[in-house]
């Protein structure tokens, strides 16, 4: 019964998401696009943090390099958009494999610090390698010509782009969900709870951690490939550690223990930001207070807290 209600709720949300361009103004189409892309970014991070228990502070490296990959391919090769996204995922996967290979053997704190260091190294390269990345200005002035697969889409139109993002993020979310619900995903959860036991069960914890890290990085790269045409620029800011903090915040806000938590978190994050910045410039102050309260009192995030409360009164 309860799962049925939840499924209906989910279906309603999906219908509402599809309908956004027909019922809402451009402003809200932009907001919804941003929520979807950042939601995918946060969900990719949650594979590493929420499922496997590794607090990475360099996740923006994959997001940022994905955006640069798409921008560079669009500028120099003018490939269809879908091909750009695949390149973004490939580049991020390779980078995640390298950084992950070197980082996953370290414990919690050192892992966080090493991923931070690698993330900032990528940032520093993007910032100082001007001939390729155009330095602090970033890469702009690229145009989306066609989508690929013979589809005739005007990607320059925000509502068309929104639907493309919705479709891609939807597919990516389903793939991630299948991965997380598979036996592989169960092992990841077990690693978060007790790596020693998983190791005693004969599984190689390190390679599972690495696999989770690469999967997370790859999908962050996809999110990055989607954000570049949305922002119309790929800039070093997308690689900075403060960008790495965003999926952390979104996951915590929504709930790290739930697959949809990061998406709820990104919606909450972007909507709160939009509402609060229309009243006051101190959005970060409010965010800080909310985050502090969440960490101290509502460790399960908004989704987890609401679900718990709802299941409790329905009993």
């Amino acid at each position: 019964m309860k799962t049925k209600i939840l499924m209906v709720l989910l279906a309603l949300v999906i219908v509402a998401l599809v309908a956004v361009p027909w019922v809402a103004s451009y402003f809200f189409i932009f907001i919804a696009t941003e929520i979807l892309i950042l939601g995918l970014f946060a969900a990719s991070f949650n594979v590493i943090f929420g499922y496997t228990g590794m607090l990475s502070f360099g996740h923006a490296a994959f997001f940022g390099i994905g955006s640069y990959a798409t921008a560079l391919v669009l500028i120099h090769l003018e490939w269809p958009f879908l091909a750009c996204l695949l390149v973004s995922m490939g580049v991020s996967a390779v980078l995640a494999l390298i950084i992950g290979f070197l980082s996953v053997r370290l414990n919690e704190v050192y892992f966080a610090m090493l991923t931070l260091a690698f993330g900032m190294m990528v940032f520093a390269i993007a910032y100082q390698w001007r001939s390729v990345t155009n330095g602090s200005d970033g890469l702009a002035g690229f145009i989306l010509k066609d989508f690929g697969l013979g589809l005739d889409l005007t990607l320059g139109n925000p509502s068309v782009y929104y639907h493309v993002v919705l479709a891609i993020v939807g597919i990516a979310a389903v793939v991630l969900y299948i991965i997380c619900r598979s036996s592989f995903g169960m092992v990841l959860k077990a690693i978060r709870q007790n790596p020693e036991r998983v190791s005693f069960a004969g599984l190689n914890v390190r390679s599972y951690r690495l696999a989770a890290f690469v999967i997370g990085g790859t999908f962050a790269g996809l999110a990055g490939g989607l954000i570049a045409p949305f922002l119309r620029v790929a800039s070093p800011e997308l690689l900075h550690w403060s960008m790495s903090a965003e999926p952390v915040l979104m996951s915590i806000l929504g709930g790290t223990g739930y697959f949809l938590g990061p998406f709820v978190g990104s919606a909450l994050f972007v909507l709160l930001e939009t509402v609060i910045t229309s009243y006051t410039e101190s959005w970060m102050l409010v965010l800080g207070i909310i985050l502090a309260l969440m960490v101290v009192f509502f460790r399960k995030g908004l989704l987890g807290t609401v679900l718990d409360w709802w299941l409790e009164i329905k009993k």
Partner: protein
Amino acid sequence: MAGIGPALLNSLDIGLLLFIIAVGLNIVFGVLNIINFAHGALYMLGAYLAFTLINLAGMPFWVALLLAPLGVAIIAVVLDRVLLRFIYSRDVADSLLLTFAILLIINESVRMIWGSGIHVVQPPDLLAGSVELLGSPVSTYSLFVIVVGLLMLAGLWYLFNRTRIGRTMRAAALDRDMAEALCINTRLVVTGVFAFGAWLAAIGGVVAAPMRALDPGMGDKIIIESFIVVVIGGLGSFPGALIGALILGFIHGFGGRYLPEVNLLLPFLGMALVLLFKPNGLMGKGAHA
């Protein structure tokens, strides 16, 4: 190679300033097992309080050097009692997240109170000039920073090895329950250590204020630097903090001068290299988490 002398001196003053800041982060981690992401924000508060005391209240620099860190320590006590007490018994990730929230709160409060513009603190007249050293002019303030760094180094060594307070802190770091059984008020120690760490960060902030322009992003920069220092040296290791700070000082002092095209990359490269070969840092004793 006429540039080596100044680069060396520059490395030392950056390194010793970083030591003052990073050692506070390290002590807090060593005793409380929390990573204080807000440490850089406390450093910034020290600098801004000093700015207010000197430029708006007209106090001498030396009085600000005494009062501003005390003010920051009091703020730290409030933070400890209101927020941090909930998460001391949880895992390290929670402390990272909560102190990150505190960082956001402090950063934004500074922006609200002092604005996002740049503020400048003049060094006191006594330290404003330069002196001749080995044939080249050296800013007196650089020498002052080096002296303060060495004094703090000696003071901390004395505190931890020769005084009862230092031994109490070390006891609480090693075994909280045993310390409790020996009638040590660990709750007080925890608050005291957190406030002490904040005090050190703020000393760093006041000392740095006349060298660097004050802006609301200054704490974010220094926290990353401090992380690099303690990770290179080894979390929780006192000599490690010194070694890490000096290494990073040299990376900045020489890297900025001789390799400007990759200078942003160098600190992170150094940190990554150390962790790859010594996963617990140069002086780290072993896994904590």
